[in-house]
């Protein structure tokens, strides 16, 4: 078992799946010779050759659409969008096609494609290399959206995504790529899609979050533990469709919920979480649900001071948790 970074876990999962199943192949911009602009596909071109690690023309709708065609044929394409921000031209293919193929054909056809994309801010990416895009897709039955929070989860969830019989949007936090490291088994394990995980058990307040924010929540929880405040962390892992059970159980227990996302607040994933809580946990709540999110601006501006202002961090989570705990 080795200590791997978040992005190394991506690469390892891809490599193992390509070794396991000849039908798995990778396509995207610069994924081949260059090994990806973030190096997520590093080494795969040398190992598997240009037929299975395909440098495509610069055209996202084709990357998705060609992948969808291959998936309907029976392959297991893993398409990379170079940045999540650049998935927009492919939305018609993803929503109108990938997400609808099984339903519209009454289970005759299906579309087992995985679409990977690095999202999120914190790397001086400015407005268009920083966006959280999950909310755009989180109302589309037929699609699954996975957003892992750690290297261990990356490996297990990416394998599940590739093996899934339906299309999966796999969103990787680009700031997490090199920031997060942990032990990742070299065994062939998977993590179920559609289930949230309690990343830390606690009794006073629940934090519901996902992706890189889980990291901040963990750090904040550590600090609060020193003051005797016990925080439970629910990591959604799959943000669509959402695992209602785990949320309801946790919030019913603690009676307080802090919902955290790096996305801008209005219309984000955590609105749905709040709705689930308000439908199911009203009489268990000791305090209003609290949302911690980015301001309602398109994405992180480039200037470093504005970027910092935009971002979620441990301090912000800690402050919000304290307020809620003291309520």
């Amino acid at each position: 078992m080795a200590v791997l970074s978040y992005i190394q876990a991506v690469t390892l999962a891809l490599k193992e799946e390509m070794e396991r199943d000849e039908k798995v192949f990778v396509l995207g911009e610069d994924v081949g010779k260059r090994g990806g602009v973030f190096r997520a596909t590093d080494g795969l071109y040398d190992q598997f050759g240009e037929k299975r690690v395909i440098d495509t023309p610069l055209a996202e709708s084709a990357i998705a659409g060609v992948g969808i065609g291959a998936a309907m044929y029976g392959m297991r394409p893993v398409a990379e969008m170079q940045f999540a921000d650049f998935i927009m031209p492919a939305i018609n293919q993803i929503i109108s096609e990938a997400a609808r193929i099984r339903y519209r054909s009454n289970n005759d056809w299906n579309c087992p494609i995985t679409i990977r994309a690095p999202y999120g801010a914190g790397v001086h990416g400015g407005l268009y290399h920083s966006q959280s895009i999950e909310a755009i897709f989180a109302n589309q039955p037929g699609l699954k959206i996975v957003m892992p929070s750690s290297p261990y989860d990356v490996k297990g969830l990416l394998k599940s995504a590739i093996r899934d019989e339906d299309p999966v949007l796999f969103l990787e936090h680009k700031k997490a790529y090199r920031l997060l490291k942990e032990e990742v088994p070299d065994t062939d394990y998977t993590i179920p899609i559609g289930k949230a995980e309690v990343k830390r058990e606690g009794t006073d307040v629940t934090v519901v979050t996902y992706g890189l924010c889980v990291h901040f929540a963990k750090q904040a929880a550590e600090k609060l533990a020193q003051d005797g405040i016990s925080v439970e962390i629910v990591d959604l892992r799959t943000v669509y469709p959402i695992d209602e059970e785990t949320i309801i159980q946790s919030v019913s227990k603690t009676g307080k919920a802090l919902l955290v996302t790096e996305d801008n607040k209005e219309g984000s994933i955590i609105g749905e979480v709040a709705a689930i809580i308000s439908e199911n946990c009203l009489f268990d709540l000791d305090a209003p649900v609290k949302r911690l999110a980015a301001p309602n601006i398109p994405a992180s501006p480039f200037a470093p001071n504005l970027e910092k202002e935009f971002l979620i961090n441990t301090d912000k989570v800690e402050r919000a948790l304290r307020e809620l705990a003291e309520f």
Partner: protein
Amino acid sequence: MDNLSNELLLEMYREMLLARRIDERMWLLNRSGSIPFVVSCQGQEVMQVAAATALDKEQDYVLPYYRDLGVVLHFGMTAKDLMLSAYAKAEDPNSGGRQMPSHFSQKKNRIVTGSSPVTTQVPHAVGIALAAQMEQKNIVSFVTLGEGSSNQGDFHEGLNYAGVHKLPVIVMVENNKYAISVPLNKQVACDSIADRAIGYGIHGVKVDGNDTMAVYNAVKEARERAINGEGATLIEAVSYRLTPHSSDDDDMTYRTKDEVDQAKSIDGLHVFKEELKTKGILTDEIDKELEEQIKQVINEATTYAENAPYPEIDTIGRFVYAEEVK
């Protein structure tokens, strides 16, 4: 025409006629209030059947657009299947009554499921060709669309991908001169849609879509090139849309009856019929027999579909995702 057997020629004629007659019946059913919607193949049966006949219907994949009745009939869909779809009944193999009619799909016949947004099927065809190439299968994918739809980004992206990767895909643009109400000259400014091929480094050819053998030969050659590793072909087949855009349209608000009548006078189905007659391949007797047969098939299909049950209401939530591991 001489290189094809009389049997095959007659079979092509039969399929064209079947498509036409099914389509006509759909209009009757629509106008009498029995089915809510029709979108027609009329005027395009010749190119559809001719093209499909040039393919290998046991192995190739087709990605038809909504007018391609002729293509799907050749690839194995039946009149009954089509009527079940028109009536939105549970047994409809295209979608189990979930999609509007003419959203063709039937996996066992490699008819790939399509949606309503136009042109999305072009990249899919390219992806299927890519997969087939990876698996070293000697097959092609065949995809069609309207000339208006050839202005969507997916056309460009799909064809460029096919060009760069030299994939065995045949793209046939069925140019029927209108995109709903918008005439060709407001859709494109090029002399021929086939001229777009050069921008993708692929072969391009324009044919008379009313000329059975011209279309057949163009697709036959395209298929040979594809199988020989020479890559994709863009075919523009020109004809005319003989009906309104759909049962919801009134085409007299944007074109004249004269113009339509003029097009009807060179209707490819009629031209082919006369050719076969001149050559003695088709006789009045055979024709009458065919018409009888077809009528019966359509009658039976209609009755069956009419009486078939709708999908169970509690199936509405099924098959959003896989229900168990396959």
